[in-house]
């Protein structure tokens, strides 16, 4: 599979994200402009020094093709590729940008993502009126992850309280992040008392609908020495994507207690990055917590703990911002919401700043190696990126 990979061939020399939230008065162009120019400033370059762009956008109504970026930045004719891979759209933009830089085709590239979900109203992910087969049912996003929750409760004896603890942790972290959507702490009781969205997931088990954008600038480690973050650029250790079926409910032997896409993507990434003990070696991870159950299952699939044990570890504090493996120190999707195309880039940007010791929220102490993870569709697509400090 990954024969050689691109480990140590790509460096992140600048990054930025907008504030996330219900940004009714900003358009996708406003958001992209903000994050893209912010990233350029961070890198100490002008937009004209960028050779090629990759843009992660999920919804057709946010924008089609790479021209959305052109109409934002006026890069006048430079190449822009739009990648779409469900919730991994943003991280896949990053992955392809890395390939291009590692191949030597371009010197400096930008990977960014954006989504304007609120343009379709705020009640849940839109599109279900038009996506999918005429009659074969397409459950809502919460409903799909509910299948996991129901099965995990049945098999591991997990409870709603176990789920709620994730919400409590992430909102606690998000409270300290200036750019998060939600800045409140939530108690276990509040989380348990919230109205149902898709049994057993209640309102606090689900990340909210929001808008936002994030961008990263990449180049080779050799060239990285000549930009603003010459001393502390971040190295890309691994990029992986893994794709499984879009309709897991037709997979006869699927167990609904783990996402094969995460398991496979993690294995590929750890191999490329030469990580042998993820729990010990990964200092922090921004993990896809679209729903509380997702974070728990992900931690197991990413090998941060044994199967069935994630709730226990959450309880013990293993995944706290200052725990053994900090999971979602930024506050995760729970605090930021999930403007789909942008989330992967936001996570990578977050991990980058953590490794550079300039996290905007909770700073994970001694962060040397970080991981970003997305899981999208009906747990069909997973992206994992591993980054480290330059030495």
């Amino acid at each position: 599979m990954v024969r050689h990979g691109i480990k140590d061939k790509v460096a992140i020399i600048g990054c930025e994200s907008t504030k996330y939230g219900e940004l009714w008065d900003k358009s996708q162009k406003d958001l992209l402009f903000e994050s893209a120019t912010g990233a350029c400033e961070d890198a100490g370059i002008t937009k004209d020094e960028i050779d090629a762009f990759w843009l992660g956008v999920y919804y057709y109504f946010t924008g089609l093709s790479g021209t959305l970026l052109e109409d934002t930045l006026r890069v006048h004719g430079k190449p822009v590729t739009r990648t779409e891979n469900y919730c991994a759209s943003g991280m896949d933009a990053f992955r392809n940008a890395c390939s291009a830089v590692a191949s030597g085709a371009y010197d400096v590239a930008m990977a960014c993502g954006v989504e304007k979900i609120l343009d379709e109203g705020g009640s849940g992910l839109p599109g279900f009126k038009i996506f999918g087969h005429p009659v074969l049912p397409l459950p809502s996003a919460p409903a799909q992850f509910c299948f996991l929750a129901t099965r995990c409760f049945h098999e591991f004896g997990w409870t709603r309280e176990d789920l709620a603890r994730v919400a409590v942790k992430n909102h606690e972290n998000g409270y300290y992040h200036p750019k998060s959507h939600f800045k409140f702490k939530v108690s276990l009781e509040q989380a348990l008392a919230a109205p149902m969205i898709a049994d057993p997931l209640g309102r606090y088990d689900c990340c909210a609908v929001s808008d936002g954008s994030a961008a990263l600038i990449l180049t080779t480690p050799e060239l990285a020495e000549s930009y603003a973050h010459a001393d502390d650029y971040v190295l890309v250790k691994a990029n992986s994507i893994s794709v499984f079926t879009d309709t897991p409910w037709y997979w006869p032997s699927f167990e609904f207690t783990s996402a094969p896409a995460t398991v496979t993507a993690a294995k590929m990434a750890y191999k490329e990055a030469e990580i042998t003990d993820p729990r010990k070696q990964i200092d922090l991870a921004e993990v896809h917590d679209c729903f509380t159950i997702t974070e728990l299952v992900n931690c197991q699939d990413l090998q941060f703990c044994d199967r069935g044990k994630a709730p226990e570890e959450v309880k013990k504090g293993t995944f706290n911002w200052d725990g053994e493996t900090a999971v979602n120190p930024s506050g995760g999707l729970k605090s930021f919401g999930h403007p789909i195309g942008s989330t992967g880039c936001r996570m990578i940007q977050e991990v980058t700043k953590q490794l550079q010791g300039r996290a905007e929220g909770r700073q994970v102490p001694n962060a040397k190696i970080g991981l970003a993870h997305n899981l999208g569709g009906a747990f069909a697509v997973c992206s994992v990126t591993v980054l480290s400090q330059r030495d």
Partner: protein
Amino acid sequence: MTIGITSYGAYLPRYLLPRKLVSDAWDFPQVPGTKAFASADEDSLTMAVEAGLDCLAGIDPKSIDGLFFASTTQVYTEKESAAFIAVILDLRDDIITIDFTDSLRAGTTAVCRAVDSIKANKDIKRILVISSDTRKPEPSTFWEFGFADGASALLISDEETVPLSIEDYYSISANVTGPWKRMDKDKFIRTFEVKMDAKFYTESLVNVMSELMKRNNLTPEDIGGAAYSYSDPRAFGKIAKILKFPQGAAQNGMFLQVGDLGTAMPFMLLIAALRRPKPDAKIILAGYGDGADAILLQVQDKKALRDLGKTRMGVLKHQKSMITIKNYNKWIDDKKLLEKDRYIRKSSAVTLWRETPSVYQMKGIKCKNCGAVQYPMMFHSCYECRADNQFEIVKLALKGTIYTYTLDHLVGGNYYDTPVPRCVIDLDGGGRVLVNMSEIEKPEENVEIGMRVELTFRKQHEGGEFHNYYWKCRPERGRP
């Protein structure tokens, strides 16, 4: 070779409306009993499929040479429902299909014409006749007490021996003063004068049934059972008196609990009569509507009839799983008597047509390499062993066990207080499907992993401006 009825099937919806709720809603005099009514996702076509499946249990659908569908509540006025039902039941395409409509005796008329077709054509030996109705009564009229929903089916065949033979039939035609329902103008049934309706009903049925007996040299004492449609128990009783049928011969047991099933009534009454068939009994099956048909049947094989009763849901098994509702508004809502805006979505007719075996016929594929059964059929590579293009087509069971599920409040892009239960089901014998669940009360308490469910054919939505149908699941009602 004899022509007769070799199988039967029926379908009664899950819900019963107590007539007391109607009386209370409008301050009408109290009327006893209940009546069956269909869920919001049912119509004449979906119920016909259920009755058809019941009738064909254990019978090879490819052996059927025709399908006649009788209903006064056709779902399309241009687009043949019989052809569609035939596809869902997996019949061949070189068969005869006809929609019989516009009259409440369409069912019995269809039986007569089925016999004619079999007699006239040596290639036609078996015709499935299904009758079904979901008539909407105008609220606050007396019809609200009677109109009910249901479907029933009879298999008319030409065989060496048959359990119930068709001996003779006789029809008259009449242009009466009512009731009627104009196309494009009337939402509900109207009539000129209810007394005249009763007069025509009585006269026509007396006419055809007495003529039938006369032609066959029968006296009233010879009649073991009489299954003829009715909406007014009194008029029904009057006919039995005029014709001097023996005590218990006229089938009047269903109105109290089930109501007036319209076109589906005569077959349903016959099926009820066959619960305890007397050997050699002569039975009259008759239908009324702008004239009348009377059909003379003779019990030939009592045991065969009893066996049918064991292997079909028929009337009794459905009745066992019917529940009485407590809220009049559910009746109004389910019947869409108040038009409520559901979400609109788009749809692709060609996709549905192309996927007929998966979507309508619940066929799946079995991997020849590892044996895994999969659904739907669009896959080229096996889920389990990833072998390419090594599939054979298999028919999936219509019942199974819940593997996991969710109660989804977000439906079609909107939030609803009442969730839609969506269930991942492992079907008996293989194949895993995802379908929505219907007819479940208190889903938060009653749906669980390991629950047994049956697949049922239902309306899904009106995307693309046509009726979109697919399967849902329901708690077991006992389908064999």
